[in-house]
């Protein structure tokens, strides 16, 4: 039971982050490895407002939302616009560079110390012995997660900008041809992506502490959620986030039952991810490419060890030709 609760809490954070990551993945076509550190940055901006300006965390989150949106647009203008059309690897490398700068910039400025948001103290409400329910930690994160999901749905379905974003993600050239200002759409996508990062970062800080690596530590979870759900699909990200968050937390009793340490729980989402990559590389909710072959690699292995009937003849034909 408490694992389910923890699972939903983690899921809502991962979902918020995964939606943000997948938006930029869909439109710009690369994996943003700086995303975790952008989440951290969001948490620190909120922390700064929270501590130094003595405003409530809600204001901190709002300020950080806006600041991160601007940071996202800045990143696109300064760096990623220059790497357009160079394949997936150069932007990944650049984003790692951005991540290094942000993470270590935070370390240099705010030191490696751990911080706690200044929020009103609310005691846990015990439900059963050993299981507490915390208004902010549990209901708050889930509520924010739900609110973001709904707002993304409204954005993508009912607004022109959202429709333009979907069109651009689907086919950049076609979107350009129909007169969509793809540049503007890209900026909007960066703004949405990074502002979601900030909120995810604040939530992360809320359920634990704020430290320079909080974002980076969950980056892989977010990636796993995006891949499981299908890259570029916000609805897939929601589904993927649920699968990833719940599988990590709810595997704990199973692991303990097997006599393994619960620390191995962090490996479970990746096993899920690898399985999805093998069986359905386009994700649960993603659209399969026209010529996808699901068991492609199994055939290849069989070919390689000569186990598939007819493989030997195939090989002969190949070497002959």
């Amino acid at each position, binding site marked *: 039971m408490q694992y389910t609760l923890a699972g939903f809490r983690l899921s809502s954070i991962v979902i918020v982050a995964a939606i943000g990551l997948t938006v930029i993945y869909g439109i710009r076509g*690369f*994996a943003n490895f700086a995303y975790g550190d952008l989440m951290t940055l969001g948490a620190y901006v909120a922390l700064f407002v929270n501590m130094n300006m003595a405003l409530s965390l809600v204001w901190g989150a709002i300020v950080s939302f806006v600041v991160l949106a601007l940071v996202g647009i800045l990143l696109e203008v300064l*760096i990623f616009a*220059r*790497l357009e059309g*160079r*394949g*997936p*690897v*150069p932007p*990944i*490398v*650049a984003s*790692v*560079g*951005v*991540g*290094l*700068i942000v*993470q*270590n*910039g935070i*370390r*240099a400025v705010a*030191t490696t110390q751990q911080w706690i948001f200044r929020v009103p103290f609310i005691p846990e409400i015990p439900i059963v012995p050993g299981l507490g329910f915390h208004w902010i930690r549990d209901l708050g994160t889930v509520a924010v997660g739900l609110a973001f999901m709904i707002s993304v749905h409204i954005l993508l379905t009912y607004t022109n900008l959202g429709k333009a974003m979907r069109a651009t993600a689907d086919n950049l050239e076609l979107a350009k041809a129909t007169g969509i200002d793809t540049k503007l759409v890209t900026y909007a996508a960066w703004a949405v992506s990074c502002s979601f990062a900030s909120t995810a970062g604040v939530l992360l800080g809320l359920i634990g502490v704020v430290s320079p690596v909080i974002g980076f530590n969950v980056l*892989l979870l977010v*990636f*796993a959620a995006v*891949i499981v759900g299908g890259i570029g699909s916000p609805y897939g990200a929601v589904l993927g986030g649920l699968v990833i968050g719940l599988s990590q937390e709810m595997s704990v009793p199973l692991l303990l039952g097997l006599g393994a*340490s619960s*620390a*191995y729980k*962090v*490996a479970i989402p*990746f096993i899920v*991810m*690898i399985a999805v*990559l*093998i069986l359905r*590389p386009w994700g649960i909710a993603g659209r399969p490419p026209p010529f996808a072959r699901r068991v*492609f*690699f199994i055939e*290849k*292995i069989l*070919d*390689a060890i000569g186990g598939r009937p007819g493989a030997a003849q195939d090989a002969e034909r*190949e*070497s002959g*030709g």
Partner: protein
Amino acid sequence: MGVPARPRTRNERAGADRTAIDTGILTNVGFYVYVSIVFALLALGFNLQWGYTGLFNAGIAGFFLIGAYTTAIAITPPTPPSIGYPGHLGGFSLPLWLAAILSMAAAGSVAALVALPTVRLRADYLAIATLAFAEVLRVVAINWESVTAGTIGIFPIPQPVEFNPPSAFLNAMVKVAIGAGVLLILLVVLLFMTESPWGRVLRAVREDEEATMALGKNTFLYKLQAFAIGGALMGLAGWLFTITINYIEPSGSFAPAITFSVWVMVIVGGAGNLRGAIVGAFAIYGLEWLSVQLKDYAPRELKDTIFYIRLMIVGTLLIVLIIYRPEGILREKKRILR
């Protein structure tokens, strides 16, 4: 971050060659050289995977870890658990050369297994999958205490040659000699491999996989081989790391930061160029080593932040290079067909 940059703390914690701390600049330079060679091996492995074949591996630290732990377990004498030390799997006291072969075999075969499902993926999926693999390995290394001694790490690991009386300087020189020898042999082997028809196919796969397939090459098999051999090289780097540093622990030395450093090295040096990988390794690790050396001379307020500033410089370098000079310092030789 996790790069093995601080011989002081390492040595203090390991209790190994404590004298190395103050035995002059040559020992220190020796340290720089052999750690650079460790990075050069990692960079050569990554270069084979990415520079030549186009496989963007983000799990370098994972293969490095396999090599390092294989070596540590193979060469250490029995270490019974004692107070404050849980002990680890080991006590085989194998010779160094055998440990090298074992490390390469272990890392290479794991790389082949990882490559089986992932090598066909697009570059970004491959990067995420391999990064996840490396992180899972690190979690295992932290938690599988009966084998790895957990976060405490494995130590003491014997020096390659024990001198009597102990001499940090001689130890450093022996390590430099071992590293240089290994690097030289590898360079020759890799030169032959990459200039051979096999290497040509790898480059063809990188440039246009479908066209290569159309020529009747089994591109999957070539990619698998390149990934496995690259992984074996990273395993060898782990071997060299273990026998030179004499102390391994999972949290820092095998963190993703290692992977990112190796990326920088290969990009700075020039992808698809053997010399480039080595130049890049010496240059980028040099930056790190210098930041350690300068720490004592740095102004007080900079003292704590110099490591972070260094990593910020590395990040800036990555961005600037990938935008303005993606081919690196030493660009790949243009091969023109006549």
